[in-house]
C-alpha cells in the first residue's frame, strides 16, 4: 500500500478493530464520519450501469462530495485511502426481505413478519425491525448494506421501510419509513397434481373472485375515505392507505402468472397507482404490457427451480436478464433473511445468463432504490448521495472473488466483524493452539 501517514493510521485502526474479536454484542454501530475521506485508484461501479476506472471517491459528512476518474487524491485535510486494483460498489440493497423481523425460522417466538388478518394496511415493519439481530452483520460482510424489511401474509400485508444495516435502534436504522405498502394479488393456489384437490376448481375460482371483489371494495372505500376532510370515525386501516393514493408510499403487488400480473396492474391503475410487481414469474410473457405501463419488477432469486416440469431448466437463471434486456426496470430479490448475503451472487448469476454486469449490479442497487423511492440518497455512487458503499478486493458479484475489506454506511466506517467470523476465530484458534 502506498499511502500517506494518515491513511496508514486509518487502515491500522480498521484492521485493529477486526482483529480484536469482539463478541457479537460488542459489534457497535460506527461513529459518525468526522473527516473527509478520499479513496483513490479503485474501479468504481457506480450502480447506474457505468464504471469509472482508476477513480477517486471523495466523501464527507456522510455524503459523496465527488466521484472522478482522476486517480489523484485531493489535497487538504482529507484522509486518503489507496484502493488501487480494488473495486468500489454502492451498498447492495436487499428488497422485500423479512430481515430483522425474524431470527430463527423454526422458532415461533422469533417470527415477527406475518400478522393475522387479510387487510393489514396499518401494519408497519419498522417498529419490529431488530437492530440487535445477529443476521445483518453477516450480510454486511458480503456488501449488503441496506434492506427493505417487509411484512408478509394476508392480502394487504402492511408497510415496509428501508433501513441501513448499522444502527443502534430502528429509528437510527430507518432511511425511509413506510416506503411501500405490500399486498398479494388473490390467486388460485396451484394444484399439486397428486392427491385430491381440497375443493373443486370452480369453488377455488369463486373464492379468488370473491377475494378480488373484497379487495376492490377495500381500495374504493379507502380512497373515498382519503378524500374526506374529517371522517366521523377514524379507520386506522384506511388512514394507512392515504399515502398510497397520494403517491407518497409505493404499492408493491405480488403476482406470478401473466393473468394475475395484468389484473393487478390494471387494478392499481384504476386507483391512479403505478404498482411495483413482485414475484412476476410469468412477466416474460407480457413484456410489452409491462413496458407500456412502466412497471418495475422485483423478481425472485435466480437460484430457484423452474416453476413447471417442462420449463427450460435454466429459465430462473435467465429470467431477470430477459426482462432487463427488454428495457424493464428490474430489481433482484432473495426469499428470506439470512439468505440475503447471497444477493450479490444472484446478480452474478444473472450476468452469467445474459445481462451486462453493470446492469446486473443495478438490479441490487439503483433499481432497488428507485423502486423504494430512496434513489435520491442511495443506490449509486453519485455526488450528493449517502456515502454508503464498500471496497472489495475483487469482483463482488462472484463468491470466488467477493472480498469486502471496508464498508461505509453514510460515511461511517462500519465494523465488518460478525458472529460467524468470531466463531471461526474462536475454534480456529483452539485447533491452532493444540497443534
Amino acid at each position, binding site marked *: 500500500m502506498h499511502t500517506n501517514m494518515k491513511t496508514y493510521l486509518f487502515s491500522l485502526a480498521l484492521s485493529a478493530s477486526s482483529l480484536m474479536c469482539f463478541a457479537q454484542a460488542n459489534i457497535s454501530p460506527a461513529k459518525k464520519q468526522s473527516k473527509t475521506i478520499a479513496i483513490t485508484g479503485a474501479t468504481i461501479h457506480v450502480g447506474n450501469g457505468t464504471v469509472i476506472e482508476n477513480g477517486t471517491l471523495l466523501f464527507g459528512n456522510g455524503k459523496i462530495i465527488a466521484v472522478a476518474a482522476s486517480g489523484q487524491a485531493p489535497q487538504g485535510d482529507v484522509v486518503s485511502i489507496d484502493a488501487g486494483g480494488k473495486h468500489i460498489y454502492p451498498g447492495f440493497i436487499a428488497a422485500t426481505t423479512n430481515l430483522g423481523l425474524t*431470527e*430463527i*425460522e*423454526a*422458532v415461533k417466538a422469533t417470527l415477527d413478519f406475518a400478522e393475522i388478518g387479510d387487510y393489514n394496511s396499518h401494519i408497519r415493519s419498522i417498529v419490529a425491525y431488530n437492530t440487535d439481530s445477529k*443476521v445483518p452483520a453477516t450480510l454486511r460482510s*458480503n456488501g449488503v448494506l441496506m434492506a427493505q424489511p417487509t411484512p408478509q401474509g394476508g392480502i394487504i400485508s402492511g408497510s415496509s421501510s428501508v433501513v441501513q444495516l448499522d444502527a443502534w435502534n430502528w429509528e437510527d436504522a430507518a432511511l425511509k419509513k413506510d416506503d411501500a405498502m405490500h399486498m398479494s394479488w388473490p390467486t388460485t393456489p*396451484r*394444484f*399439486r*397434481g*397428486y*392427491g*385430491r*384437490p381440497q375443493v373443486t*376448481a370452480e369453488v377455488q375460482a369463486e373464492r379468488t373472485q370473491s377475494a378480488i371483489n373484497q379487495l376492490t371494495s377495500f381500495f374504493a372505500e379507502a380512497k373515498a375515505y382519503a378524500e374526506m376532510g374529517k371522517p366521523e370515525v377514524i379507520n386506522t386501516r384506511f388512514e394507512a392507505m392515504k399515502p398510497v393514493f397520494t403517491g407518497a408510499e409505493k404499492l408493491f403487488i405480488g403476482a406470478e*402468472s*401473466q*393473468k394475475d400480473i395484468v389484473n393487478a396492474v390494471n387494478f392499481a391503475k384504476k386507483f391512479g397507482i403505478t404498482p411495483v410487481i413482485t414475484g412476476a414469474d410469468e412477466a416474460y410473457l407480457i413484456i410489452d404490457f409491462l413496458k407500456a405501463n412502466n412497471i418495475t419488477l422485483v423478481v425472485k432469486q435466480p*437460484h*430457484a*427451480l*423452474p416453476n*413447471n*416440469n*417442462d420449463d*427450460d*431448466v*435454466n429459465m430462473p437463471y435467465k429470467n431477470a436478464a430477459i426482462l432487463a434486456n427488454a428495457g424493464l426496470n428490474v430489481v433482484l430479490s432473495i426469499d428470506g*433473511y*439470512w439468505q440475503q*448475503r*447471497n444477493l450479490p*451472487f444472484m446478480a*452474478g*448469476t444473472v*450476468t*452469467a*445468463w445474459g445481462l451486462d454486469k453493470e446492469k446486473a449490479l443495478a438490479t441490487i442497487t439503483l433499481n432497488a432504490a428507485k423502486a423504494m423511492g430512496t434513489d435520491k440518497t442511495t443506490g449509486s455512487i453519485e455526488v450528493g448521495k449517502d456515502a454508503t458503499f464498500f471496497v472489495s478486493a475483487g469482483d463482488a*458479484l*462472484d*463468491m*470466488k*472473488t*467477493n*472480498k469486502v475489506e471496508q464498508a461505509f454506511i453514510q460515511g461511517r466506517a462500519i465494523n465488518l466483524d460478525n*458472529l*460467524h*467470523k468470531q*466463531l*471461526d476465530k474462536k*475454534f*480456529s484458534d483452539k*485447533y491452532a493452539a*493444540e497443534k
Partner: protein
Amino acid sequence: MKKLLLAVVLVFYAAILFAQQTTYPVNGSFDTRPGQFAFTNATIVVNSNQTLTNATLLVKGQTIQAVGAGLAVPKGYVIIDAKGKFIYPSLVDAFTGYGLPEAVVQPRGARQSVFVSAKKGAYGWNEAIRPETQVKNIFSVDSKKADDLRKAGFGSVNVINRDGIARGISAAVTLNDGADNNVFLKDQTAANYSFSKGTSSNDYPTSLMGSIALLRQTYYDAQWYGKQKDEYNISLEEFARQQNIPQLFEVDGWANILRADKIGKEFGKQYIIKSTGDEYQRIQEVKATGASLIIPLNFPKAYDVEDPSEARNLTLTQMKAWEMAPANAAALEKAGVKFALTSFGLENTRDFWANIRLAIENGLTEKQALQSITEIPASLLGISDKVGSLEKGKVANFLISSDNLFKKDNIIFENWVQGKRFIINKIDVTDIRGNYNLNIDGVGALTLKITGTSGGSVAAIERIDVDSVKATAALARNGDWVSINFSLKKNPAGNIRLSGFLTAASPLLLKGEAVLPDGTTGRFTAAYKEAAKETQKKEEPKATLAMGPVIYPFGAFGNEVLPKAENVLIKNATVWTNEKEGILQNADVLLENGKIKAVGKNLSAGNARVIDATGKHVTAGIIDEHSHIAGSGGINEGAQSVSAEVRIADIINSEDVNIYRQLAGGVTTSHILHGSANPIGGQSQLIKLRWGKAPEELKFAGADGFIKFALGENVKQSNFGTGARFPVTRMGVEQTFVDEFTRGKEYGKAIAVKGNNVRRDLELDAIVEILKNKRFITCHSYVQSEINMLIHVADSLGFKINTFTHILEGYKIADKMKAHGIAGSTFSDWWAYKNEVAEAIPYNGKIMHNVGITTAFNSDDAEMARHLNQEAGKAVLYGNVPEEEAFKFVTLNPAKMLHIDGQVGSLKAGKDADVVIWSDNPLSIYAKAEKTFVDGAAYWDIEKDALVIKTQQTEKARLIQKMLESKSSGSGTQRAQGVAPRLYNCETLENYSAELNESEHAH
C-alpha cells in the same frame, strides 16, 4: 305393498331351479325346470382360435352340453333360432370389487401415533397385513352392479377386497343374480397384494419403501411362524397358507410393476400384476418381468387447451399419455406380454366397448382383444375349466350378438349366465335403420333417416328441394311400435308427433297416426328407400393414427434414443485433475468406452471426436453426498424411530426431471438418502444421473451400501408430529441407538448360533451389516453435543461412523471427528432456519478441512444441487480454501466418503468418464456446465438442450391440435390442470397410501 311385491319376486327367482339340488327350503311348491335350450344356425366363436358357422349350442341347466356344426337337437330342448347372430363366451373380468362394500379410508394425517394394530383378535401387528380377509366370507350379490357388468358382456368376475398391503384371498363368481350360494365359481382364486395400506389405522408404513419393507418382512415372518411356538398369529398363518395359489398384485404405474416383480423374484413368486395402463412407457422392462398383466381401459380424456395460458400448465407427459394410452394394449401385444383387460377404473362400465374399440383402432388385434377378455383372465384365475370359452361341460356363460363383437354397431342382445337368460337388447326387434320417404297428411313429402344402435335409435328429418329444412327427431320404440317427434320450425311451426308401427318387414314400411302442431290428426307412411349412408361409413377401417414416439423418460427432456458413450478428445482446456498433477493448463482429456483413457498434453485423438475446449475448464463430475431427488412415494419412513429395513433402492424414480436439471449443473453422481424424521432411517442408494435409463440402470454398480442416521430436532420431532413417538429429547436419541445396537449384536450372535431358526429381522440385518463394516453410516447432525454422543455410542458398541452429514457444528468438534476418521459433508452457508443451526457458520467447511477431515459440501435440496460448484466457491469466500481443494469438496472428497474414489471423483486414466466441460472457472458464479458426460455419454449438452426445447414445443403444438380436433369431434375433455413438481428434502413427510386413495377417488 311395494315391499310385498319385491319379496314375491325374490322368492320366485330363488324358486326356479335347473334340476339341481338345494339345501334351501322353498316357501311354496318347487318350480324345477329342465332348462334345456338349443341355439341353432349361429356363428359360434368357441374361443379366439375357433369359429363355427351355422352351428348349434346346446345348454342344459348351468352347463354347455354340446357345441358344433350339424348337431341334432334332442327332444325337449327349447329351440332358439340364432340365424345371422353370433355367440361368444361371456367375458371374464379378472379384477373387480364386485359384491363388496367399498373400503372407506378415514381421512387422517400422516401421523396419528397408532403404532400397532387396533383390530381385535389374534392378528398380526400391522393392520395393513390382512391376509385373513377372505372374499368368500364377505361377498354378496349386487344386482345393480351385476346388471351393469352383464350389459357390457361380462359373465363372471374375480372379486378382490382392495384393502391393505396383504389383502387376502379373492374369489371368482358369476354375474348371475339370486342367492350368494349359487354364483361361486372358485372360492380361492388368488392371494392379493398392493403397496397401499388402505384403511389401516397404523402409522407404519407412511411411504412406498415402507410398504415394500413391510411386505418383505411379512414373507420372512410367515416362514418363521411355522417353526416357532411362542406366538399364535392368524395373519401369519393365513399368509403362509395362501402361498401356493396365484398371487395377484395391484400397482399403479409401470415403475411399481418393476418394484412388485422384484419382491416376487426375491421370494420365488411370479405375481400377476394389475397395473394402470402406462406400460408402453417402459415396455422392455415390463416384459422382462415375465409377469402376466391385468390392464385397464380407462384412457385419459383430452385436455381443454383452447386457452393457451391454461394449456401452458400441461406437461408433455400428460399430453403424450393422452395420445398413447389407447395404444398400450397394442404395444403389450406386440411385445408378447400376456395380459387381460379389465373394466376396472372406468367411470362407466358402458365405456368398455368404446375403449376396447379405440384400443383396436390403435393396433390391438381382435383376436388378442378377445383372448384378453375371455381365455386369459380365466386362465389367470384358474377357472379356465369353467369359463372363457364355449366347450362342453363348461358353465353356460355366453353372449348373443348381432355381429362380430368388436364392430362398432354390434349389438349384444343377450347375456346368458349359468344358463340363465339376461336380455340386454331385444333380439327379435327388426332393424329399421335406413332412409325413408316420409309422407304426412297435411305436411307433405319429407325424408326420414333412422340410425343408431339397437336396430335404430336416432332419427333425423329433412325436407328436400323445398326449403331444405333439417331437424333431429326423438325416436322411441316399443317392439314394433315406433313414435317420432320433431319440429320443422315452419310449415308448420311447432311439434309434429308420429305414432305408428311396422306393417311390412321387407321392404320396411311404417304406418300410423300423425298429430300436427294445431292438433289436427292425419295419417303418415314411411317407406324404406335405402340404407343410411353414415352407418356404412363408420364400418370403414380407419387409417393408422399418427402418433408421437415413446421417449425416455416419458416427458420433458426425454429422448427417443438415449445418448451413448462416445470416444471424445477434449482439447486445450484448463483441466482440474484432482490428482497430484493439480490443475493443468492447455491440457487434453480423452474419453474412450465410458472411461477416461488419458489426461495430459497433446493427446492424439485417434478415432475420437475432438471438442475444442480452449478457454474452458474441464473437471470430474460433481458428486452430491446428500440428495433426495429421484425417489417415489416418500423419502421418510418416520412412523417408527428406527426404520433400517427400508431401502431407497426400492423406490428410485428414473423420471424425475431434477436428474436432468442437475446434469445441467454438472452433477453426475447423487447419494439418495432417506430423510431425517427418525434416529435410524433407511438404507440409501447411490445413483449416476443416466437420464432416460430405467431405475435399476441408474444405480451405481458395486458401491458400498450406506444408511441414514439422524440426530437433533427432526428426530425429536420438535417442529412436527404428535409428540407421542419416542424419542423427544437428545437423551432419548442416545438410548434409541444404544437399544438398537444392543439388540443388533444379540441378533447377530443368535443367527451365528441358531442360523435359520432365528426370525429374520430386516431392520436388525441392517444393524448387523453396520457392525460388520458392510454398511456405512451417514448421520444427519447439527450440534456438537449430539455429535459427541454418537461418537461415544459408536465406540462403546463397536461400530463406526463413516460420515456426519450437515454437521453444521463440525467445526466445534473437528478434532474428535478427525481422531475417529469420520468425514464431514456440510452445507456451504446455511444457518438460522432452526434453533440447532443458530451457530452454523460458513467457515465450517474450511475448519474441518484444515483440521484434516475429508470435507464435502452437499445439497439436500434439488435446487442447490444445480450449482454445487458455486457452493464450493464459497469455501474460497469463507476461509480462503485454495481453489483446487475447494473444488474437491464437491468431487473427490464426497467420492472418498462414499468409497467410490477408485471409480470417480478425479480425472485419471481408468476412472469412469464422468466429466464436465465448464465455460469458466467452475468455482465462479459465471461458470456454466456446457457438457456433462456420465460414463462417456453426454447426458447434458447446452447446445442440444436448445434443440430439445424446440422439439418439445413442436410436439406439444401437435398434441394441442390433436386435442382440439378430438374435442370438436365430440370427445369428452378434462380441465388443463398441470402437475406441480414434487420435491423432497430431509424433512418431507407424507402419507403415500392416503394420497394413492385420494388420487384414485379424484377420478
